[in-house]
């Protein structure tokens, strides 16, 4: 099965390369006088970068699935740190990558009743409003400041990933009154136990308050926020782990929508960056799911942590002007 996907990927690479080469010969362009006044182009042909982006995001897509993280959190620091694109366009692409992944996963998770619309909708309202504010702040900040804050955030995420424990079935002894009045509860079929699991949540006001911060960070850095959503839903609010992971993924489709529109409307979306990334990460995710059954999760988790540590340090040092 995995070999079949490799064939598709190689075919795609060939198609992109051929298209890129023929494009130079037949494209008709509209140049503006200002174009002569900007920085000279490097000797590297333009198509090398989207192709490299496709390959890198394909690998990130595999690692994201195996490491249990969203694509955005790997995409922004790595592409922002090692590709020649401005961080504005990288964040716009990062949001669309995370959005597409969430949109793709959403229907299945909702239909299987793992993602809960009753849990997601109130949280999404808070997070998506905050993400708009975050996106506006992020686009107004200087790139050095963004890189420094992004690096610090990624290193913070590394710390959370390294130390945070997860709870399959947290104990919620007394659901809070807000969650009760909103009817945030449910029952899902836990196949591994062969039984139905009833769930409730508590500490809803505290959880909603934290989603303000999560939304701002998602919008500001163009990160999907699964790394923060899951601990809040699972460890603070007490939703079962499967419900938390699935609802978090669905939630990203709403949170990232609002921030993505801000980037789109400001012009911070370049199809040449977005599309290869999006296709690469989605194909990588499909392959990742196939490999998942045979992978050693602990080793992969530490590999992803190592990768984030490197990319986060790169962003931080780039922002501080130490590693340009």
């Amino acid at each position: 099965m995995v070999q079949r996907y490799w064939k598709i990927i190689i075919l795609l690479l060939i198609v992109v390369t051929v298209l890129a080469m023929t494009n130079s010969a037949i494209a008709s362009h509209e140049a503006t006088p200002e174009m002569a006044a900007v920085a000279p182009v490097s000797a590297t042909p333009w198509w090398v970068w989207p192709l490299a982006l496709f390959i890198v995001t394909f690998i990130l897509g595999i690692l994201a699935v195996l490491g249990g993280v969203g694509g955005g959190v790997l995409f922004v620091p790595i592409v922002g740190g090692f590709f020649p694109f401005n961080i504005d366009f990288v964040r716009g692409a990062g949001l669309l990558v995370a959005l597409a992944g969430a949109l793709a996963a959403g229907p299945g998770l909702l239909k299987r009743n793992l993602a809960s619309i009753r849990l997601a909708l109130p949280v999404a309202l808070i997070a998506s409003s905050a993400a708009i504010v975050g996106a506006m702040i992020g686009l107004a900040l200087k790139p050095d400041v963004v890189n420094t804050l992004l690096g610090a955030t990624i290193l913070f995420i590394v710390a959370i990933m390294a130390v945070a424990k997860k709870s399959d079935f947290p104990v919620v002894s007394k659901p809070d009154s807000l969650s009760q009045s909103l009817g945030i509860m449910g029952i899902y079929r836990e196949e591994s136990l062969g039984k139905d699991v009833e769930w409730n949540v508590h500490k809803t006001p505290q959880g909603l308050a934290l989603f303000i911060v999560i939304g701002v960070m998602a919008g500001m850095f163009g990160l999907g926020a699964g790394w923060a959503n899951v601990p809040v839903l699972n460890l603070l609010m007490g939703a079962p782990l499967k419900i938390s992971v699935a609802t978090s993924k669905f939630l990203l489709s709403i949170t990232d929508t609002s921030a993505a529109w801000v980037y789109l409307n400001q012009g911070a979306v370049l199809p040449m960056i977005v599309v290869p990334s999006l296709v690469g990460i989605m194909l990588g995710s499909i392959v990742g799911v196939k490999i998942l059954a045979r992978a050693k999760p602990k080793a992969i988790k530490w590999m992803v942590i190592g990768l984030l540590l490197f990319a986060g340090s790169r962003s931080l040092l780039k922002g501080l002007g130490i590693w340009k």
Partner: protein
Amino acid sequence: MADVKTKASEEQMAYASVLNVGMWFGLFLLIVTFLVYLSGVLPTFVPIDDLPRYWGMRVHEFNVQLHAPTGWGWAALVGKGDYLNFIGIAILSGLTILCYMVILPILIRKKDKAYIVIAIVEILVLSLAASGLLKVGGH
């Protein structure tokens, strides 16, 4: 047969159905339009060979240098290969608003007051973000 208690609610299923169709449609369109862009069949707003001169710029600088459109200005340029891609991007970005509009009548029929309010406010928030009315200062 799945127990009725573990089944997703009507609004959840409706949301999932619209999301499923819209997501595949948007993604398909995005890939097709990108191949059109790469093929060079259509003229481009920014010549592909010149892109490396601009993709390292801040977005504000990029817009000023190229007189690139902001807000919904791209809609007037969908005849250009690069802006043609924005149709798929806008569909993927607008899908959530459509999903909320689909579940709203179900919530109204169920008289689920809190979620009716939440859904309406969310539609307004996302529509505001999509409207292009929110401006970010220059640098």
